[in-house]
């Protein structure tokens, strides 16, 4: 479904990614873990071309989307993304946050977009918050609106960038529940996360990233319970406490 080959990225003198590969087949969930500054977020942004890699290629359903002939907007509208800090449009209601992409990117008519947006918000359990503005919602609710906003575009792949890191502990589970349900329904997902419970339960593959390189990769049981590399061991024992 989505494949990245040998992605390199530097910002000025700072080398962030030193050759990252990733392949996620349809319906799979791939988790990326690693210390802060390891390049997880940058790599995720390379997948939907929010960050253009210096070298290396990204393929979406076999199409080389890093090719200069391809418009980044066309790629991004097929890939949903959920951010650590929600990034809802604060001047729009929950409903309008979801319909914006439908009407302005997919050119749906208003009525159809409303219907679709309502359905997506109901799916994440927010059918009663359509008219609420982001500032009137809890962090967990905001993040679920953000998930609905991304899902409404019928993406082929969903990217999650530490979706629960900014949440109060009491709201984390409601977001993880929605994500687990998505995974069950067969959504292809790439998730940067520190939620080991979630990764263990849902992920098909876990990649440990450090200093812009892949240190170790494998099924969650291997990475969390029997890591081979010393760095992975140290990191896993730290986050599992």
């Amino acid at each position, binding site marked *: 479904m989505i494949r990245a080959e040998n992605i390199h990225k530097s910002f000025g003198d700072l080398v962030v990614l030193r050759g990252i590969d990733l392949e996620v087949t349809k319906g799979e969930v791939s988790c990326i873990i690693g210390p802060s500054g390891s390049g997880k977020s940058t790599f995720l942004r390379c997948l939907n071309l929010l960050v253009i890699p210096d070298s290396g290629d990204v393929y979406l359903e076999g199409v080389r989307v890093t090719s200069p002939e391809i418009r980044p*907007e066309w790629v*991004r509208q097929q*890939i949903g993304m959920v951010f650590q800090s929600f*990034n809802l*449009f*604060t*001047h729009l209601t929950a409903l309008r946050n979801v319909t914006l992409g439908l009407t302005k990117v997919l050119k749906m008519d208003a009525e159809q977009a409303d219907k679709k947006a309502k359905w997506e918000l109901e799916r994440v359990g927010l059918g009663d918050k359509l008219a609420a503005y982001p*500032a009137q919602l809890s962090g967990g609710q905001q993040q679920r609106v953000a998930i609905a906003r991304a899902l409404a575009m019928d993406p082929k792949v969903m990217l999650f960038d530490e979706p629960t890191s900014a949440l109060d502990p009491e709201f984390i589970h409601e977001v993880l529940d929605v994500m687990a349900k998505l995974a069950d329904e067969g959504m292809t997902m790439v998730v940067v996360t520190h939620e080991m419970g979630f990764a263990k339960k849902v992920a098909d593959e876990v990649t440990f990233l450090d200093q812009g390189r892949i240190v170790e990769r494998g099924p969650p049981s291997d990475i969390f319970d029997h890591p081979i590399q010393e760095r992975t061991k140290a990191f896993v024992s730290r986050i599992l406490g």
Partner: protein
Amino acid sequence: MLARIIAGTGGSIGAFLFLVWLGRAGVYSLSYAESIVPALERGFSGTLWLVAAVIPIGFTMGLVMASARTSNSRIARAVGGTYVEFFRSMPPFTLIVFSSILATKIIRSIFFIDNPVAFAVAAGTLALAFHSGSYQTEIMRAGILSVPAGQIEAAYAMGLSRLRTLFDVVLPQAFRVALPALGNEFSSVIKDTSLLSAISAIELSFIGGVLVNGALSIDFNLIFIIWTEIALLYFVLTYVVVRIVRFVENRSKVPGLQAAQL
């Protein structure tokens, strides 16, 4: 609320004392005050026309140039920066006089019109609008910078183009932040239209000057009546515009986003 009462009472007492003083000085002349009303009407409508030109043009320039200044294109940023520095760094009076002379010179040499007053006034008005636009550029730029980068990233991530992101995500929020400062700039530029009297634009202050010339030979004190009425008209115009801006500000408040109250 308390502030409003204090300001209201203070203003009323001030106005009352001023009138008492005018009465003492023997400058009350209701018949004269009425006799200049038609002339003032003409001046007021002139000022209204100028305001109706200067505010929209300045606002449009502000929007366009602020977008340019925050663009990722180097050229656009350079154009916006040059515009602001040029029009902000000269007194509006100088800009007005210079541009009207320039317009006169050009029109004369091309169309052989001896005294193209209308063109001179149009050029001066445009110069004032551009001057105000340079301030509005910076006001809007501050508004644009207040929009969290994450929201722009989110807009791009769902496939919105740069232009759509600007219009649907950035500007609506930037505008809300900029409104109080924009109201300030509007009220300031309304009064700056009086500078256009220097190039013979038929507006309130120009009419004021004409009336004063006529009144001087009758009674020096009549000047007070003229300028009191003119001041009042400027006040009313400014007040109305400021209230309109306030109204828009209140209407566009986002529920749940409350400002801190000290």
